[in-house]
């Protein structure tokens, strides 16, 4: 057996930052934090003195422009699964080492890929294309390879006879010990695995536990190590944040490539292709925009994906900045031969009203159809809000004064004759004033006295007098 271990030392950072187009001139230092402490940071931050483990306040003192993101463990998990799925293209034997490692058994793949050097080269290039930097190490045992990678030793040990010497040189920290064990070893002057192996075996077991002895023997190949293998999923969905809100197609293409490389790997692993995939453009405050890319025949080549996507995006105007993207593909087909029924829509029947809404949206545009609900706001024009078509309005009563069903937006200015409002004649004030002074926080501040008035036509009007200003008609009571 021969194991290739991938360790991602900057994983917490890159899982969130790899969608960013590198631009030397404007890039700001980046860091990932967990609550109040820096967990990982990029080279720019490092150059300013930021280090993992320091507090955020200290980090900002060192680098005031530091961009800080909170750690997103779900995103990291998803990203690691993405890498594992992609790695399945090289070997069926891929194993997970959360939170930041992937292990591949590659002995059977060497011939196909023309040797170890060529294979590791491909893996490294692929990871770089996806936006990850990794330490790669090879050893005859899975644990040995992982410890080498964890210690940052980019070695290829193929000869089992050389394994012990290679591992002996590693610092004890490579053996995944907990903090207490590490500080104990430091206190007795044990720095490397060689020092550790030189101690009496039963004495070490007594102090650090039998699990450590077993772990050492696994790494050295004295006892076997069973691993659970990763099974690549039958559909693909991966999300990437762009940061800085990309407003041009190139930025989207750059990030999309990182995901499509991943898709290609997953498809290769399953010896499958797709006839179409979706690129979902996510905006900050607007519904997502879905771009569908169809292939005339099933395929999985990254270059083909990119070419189609480039063409498609050139016809799509990015109306809003894109905050994140998602690539989705299901319906994997074996690349040779396909089955019927893939295109059968099993959920063809839908409720009639949903179809009506879809048709209305298709005709009028997605934004033009919505539900309506009340909002807790003193300003009448903001006391309602649009709901998504399938959203239920919240229960509960909101008490306000009398409100007309029809609001006139924007309010219409009324004639003012000696302080009395006129609209086709003098208006008679029936009730009021109801004074509303609110909304300073969003620039839409109002200061109004509302009245119910009777028009000469006997219509009941809702009018207001602006503080220090004139009269306006704001609503009609039905």
């Amino acid at each position, binding site marked *: 057996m021969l194991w290739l271990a991938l360790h991602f030392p900057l994983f917490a950072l890159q899982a969130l930052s790899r969608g960013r187009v590198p631009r030397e001139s404007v890039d700001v230092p980046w860091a990932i934090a967990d609550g109040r402490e820096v967990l990982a940071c990029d080279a720019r931050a490092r150059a300013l*003195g930021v280090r993992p483990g320091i507090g955020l306040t200290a980090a*900002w*003192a060192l680098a005031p422009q530091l961009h*800080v993101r909170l750690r997103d463990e779900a995103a990291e998990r998803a990203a690691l699964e993405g890498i594992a799925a992609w790695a399945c293209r090289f070997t069926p034997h891929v194993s997970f080492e959360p939170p930041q490692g992937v292990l591949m058994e590659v002995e059977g793949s060497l011939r196909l890929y023309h040797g170890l050097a060529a294979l590791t080269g491909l893996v490294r290039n692929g990871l770089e294309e996806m936006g990850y930097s990794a330490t790669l190490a090879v050893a005859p045992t899975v644990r040995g390879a992982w410890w080498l990678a964890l210690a940052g030793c980019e070695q290829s040990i193929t000869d089992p006879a050389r394994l012990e010497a290679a591992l002996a040189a590693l610092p004890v920290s490579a053996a995944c010990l907990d903090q207490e064990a590490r500080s104990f070893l430091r206190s007795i*002057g044990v720095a490397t695995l060689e020092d550790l192996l030189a101690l009496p075996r039963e004495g070490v077991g007594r*102090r650090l536990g039998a699990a450590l002895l077993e772990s050492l023997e696994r790494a050295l190949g004295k006892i076997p190590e069973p691993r659970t293998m990763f099974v690549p999923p039958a559909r693909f969905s991966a999300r990437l944040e762009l940061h800085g809100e990309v407003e041009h197609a190139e930025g989207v293409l750059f990030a999309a490539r990182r995901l499509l490389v991943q898709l290609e790997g997953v498809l290769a692993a399953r010896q499958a292709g797709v006839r179409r995939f979706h690129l979902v453009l996510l905006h900050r405050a607007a519904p997502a925009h879905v771009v569908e890319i169809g292939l005339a025949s099933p395929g999985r080549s990254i270059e083909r994906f990119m070419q189609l996507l480039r063409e498609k995006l050139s016809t799509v105007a990015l109306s809003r900045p894109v905050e994140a993207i998602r690539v989705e593909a299901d319906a994997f087909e074996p690349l040779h031969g396909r089955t019927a029924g893939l295109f059968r829509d099993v959920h063809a029947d839908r409720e009639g009203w949903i179809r009506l809404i879809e048709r209305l949206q298709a005709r009028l545009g997605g934004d033009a159809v919505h539900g309506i609900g009340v909002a*807790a706001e003193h300003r009448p024009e903001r006391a309602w809000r649009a709901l998504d078509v399938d959203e239920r309005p919240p229960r509960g009563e909101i008490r306000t004064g009398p409100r007309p069903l029809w609001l006139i937006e924007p309010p219409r200015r009324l004639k003012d004759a000696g302080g009395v409002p006129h609209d086709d004649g003098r208006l008679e004030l029936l009730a009021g*004033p109801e004074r509303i*002074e*609110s909304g300073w926080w969003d620039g839409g501040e109002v200061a109004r006295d509302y009245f119910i008035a009777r028009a000469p036509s006997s219509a009941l009007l809702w009018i207001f007098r602006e503080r220090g200003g004139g009269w306006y008609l704001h609503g009609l009571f039905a």
Partner: protein
Amino acid sequence: MFSALPAYAELHCLSNFTFLRGASHPEELVERAAALGYSALALTDECSVAGMVRAHIAAKARGLKLIVGTEAGLDDGTRLVLLATDRRAYGALCSLITVGRRRAKKGGYALSRSDVEPLAESGALALLVPGEQPEPGAARWLAGLFVARAWIAAELHCGANDRARLALLGELSAASGLPLVAAGDVHMHVRSRRRLQDTLTAIRLGRPVAQCGHALHPNAERSLRLRMRLAQLYPPDLLAETLAVVERCGFSLDELRYEYPEELVPAGQTPASWLRGLTLEGLGRRFPDRIPDRVRELVEHELALIAELRYEPFFLTVHDVVRFARERGILCQGRGSAANSAVCYALGITEVDPGRMSMLFERFISRERNEPPDIDVDFEHQRREEVIQYIYAKYGRERAALAATVICYRPRSAVRDVGKALGLSAGQIDRLSHSLTWWDDRSRLPERVREAGLDPASLVVQQLLEFASALVGFPRHLSQHVGGFVIARGPLAELVPVENAAMQDRTVIQWDKDDIEALGLIKVDVLALGMLSAIRRALEFVGMRMEDVPTEDPAVYEMIQRADTVGVFQIESRAQMSMLPRLKPRNFYDLVIEVAIVRPGPIQGGMVHPYLRRRQGLEPVTYPSEEVRQVLERTLGVPIFQEQVMQLAMVAAGFSPGEADQLRRSMAAWRRKGGLEHFEGRLLRGMLERGYTKEFAEALFRQILGFGEYGFPESHSASFALLVYVSAWLKHHYPAAFCAALLNSQPMGFYAPAQLVQDAQRHGVELRPADVAASAWNCTLEGGALRLGLRMVSGLSEAAAHRIEALRPFASVDDLARRAELDRRDLGRLAAAGALAALAGHRRQAHWLAAGVEHAPGMLRAMPARETPAAFSPPAEGEDIVADYASLGLTLGRHPLALLRERLNRLRLVTAERLRRLPHGRVARTAGLVTCRQRPDTASGVIFITLEDETGCANVVVWRKLAERQRRELLGARLLGVEGVIEREGEVVHLVARRLFAHDALLGSLAVSSRNFH
């Protein structure tokens, strides 16, 4: 026109002491109500009278009638406003608030209808504040309880349907028989506070203001409104009814009389006779041979004054507390204006002997000033709790409680809370608030705002600044005063409400020390002082009492003049140390001055240099008049103490004692509130009239401004100076005992144990390591040597140390573990400290053996397994030093920099000692461990760094420009290299930095903690 308006009194008004609801200070409400011509104002903060004294003072000044009341929400949703008619009703009101507050956790309250019943019997008045849907049941209940003393508050706020509302309330009135009265539910003094009030609502609800919806008030009508406007809104009879309510409220806070506890005086004695007896008895002890005539006269004079002002019970109270501490062997000392009296000396409250302090006496109690006597008593910091428990036990929790401290919004908290209310993200808020240099220097704001990803010109940034500025100074919550106890004869809750403090089993009253002082109540300050613990321990080591310490020992002053004062009380800080060689204290009074002069007040007032020049004879000592000479002669014509400023205002500007006292109060507060301006005119005019020059007058006023809240009273300084002298005397004569006492009293003082130990070593003290074979829990003396105690071992429990001490000797690590019942963790800690050396040899071996001990202490264990021995090479010296620092915080080995010296030499870095001998202006480079980084309030942007190496300390000054350019080195480096220019003034040497270097790589993993920016 004005008089044609209807008369009105506001009966329902919240100040910002209803935290996060009221948007105006009590004083602002009073001012505004007076300006609007209101007949009276009721301050009715929610279940609180915390703002009442401030309102009371303001109302007296404006001649406005103030009604004491409170708003209370009951658990069934009923909302009431309760008003005090007389002293009895006021007591019942305070009791009700106390009941509600004591029942809930800090900041909350819980009341139900049954709690209100005692209040009804007291004669208080009640207003029902009906909710959206008036509840007839509540009105009937209230009408039945407060017969002919309850109303329904009709509060109209230009809502959707005021007319219908009024009609509804009219029905409620008819049904219950309660009359209607107009009220305003006032939350702010002027309409323009509306936005701030909305912001407070958002902070209270913990969500952005844009999401607060109907929780916000729809308009600004909850302000103190023009009477003309009220006349438009309310029927006249409802407005007139407010006066009928006011008519029945006759209570004023001026009626409160403080009543001392009675039990201090035995039957058959009066307070005066008992105090006289105790005083004379004490004098006999103090002067066993013969009481000096002068002292006897002084005592008679003071006793007469005390009797006239009826302060005997206060002195007896303090005496009782001090007597208790003495009996328990707790060292304590009084300070403050009354503490340095002959009576207090006789009673043992202070040790400042009238013989030494002749020039100080007679000023400490003054009939004219009519201020309550001020005595703060400091106790050993680790034993103050015993004293507090004694007070609670003696007087009961109903009669003794701590004064409150009003915690106010400061810029950082204001920016954070307002930022949240305006919907900024947590990251943006952190970014804006982590450094607030922009708060005082607005030119730096745009940069900081852009870093947070905001546009400096945007609305949200403008609003943030506006509201945060307005919020600064708003009270946030009540906290406990550090130690000011209020003790009453009867239940305290009838004098002022008592509520729970954050600390368990602590209660605070709703007034702070200014409130207490303003009402003439008296508090006894029970404070904690670390140095007293250290002095008591050092005296125990050498078998002396404090009064045995010989006075005016020239050798001690010589040591002080050399600034050889590490560990000495007060004069050990860097600023003090740099002053000592210039000031050269020669006697006790010089120490009194030294303590007071190196403080922000005198420094900012520019008193330090004139005093120094005069003392050094570089400048003639002159006085503009004989009166001024009498006030300033003892400080060479330069005002240094707070008392001197007041006396100057009286003798030179014609202030009355009362005005001088007001000046003192304003001095303490002007930085927060302003308000010294009107004294300026008075002062300048008064002095010009009395023939002083304009220059002299203006200089004095500038000094008063500089004094501000930092002005230090001579009376405090004198008590502190005594501790300075005693601690310096101990350091000089018994350096080992003094160092051990300091180590046993940690944490305290300016220096960490490492520095204290190094200083002791420099003074020839032999230090011995912590060792399970020899050490006790505390540091001890072995002949002349100092043995470190096991308390220095990080993480080791005191109980484990006592077991070790009791069961010695041990045959092996395993024997130790078994008999002293230590587990692997304890053993690991001892190994880390090197304390197992006697049993296990070097540290690596000790760690290995310690970790080999089986778990489960105290259980039956098999004999230790015969282990294959493991061989370890001994640790290098550097490794041991690192381990020493990590566990003990100090090393008895060589200083870490001694190990690096050769490499430092190659880098041409000189030692601290060499640096001290370089001439002024020379460029030099040095490096040392950063032991202290300080940014004093008084030095704009300058940072002081102390570097330590094996020869001592070097003082580095970093100007702001450099600090910004080399942030990384400045904040990050533990081993800091500095290239700079020597600045020498006599013995005092600073290195003014030009460049900084981080040399951490040389240190490896050496862990040295540095005291960072406070």
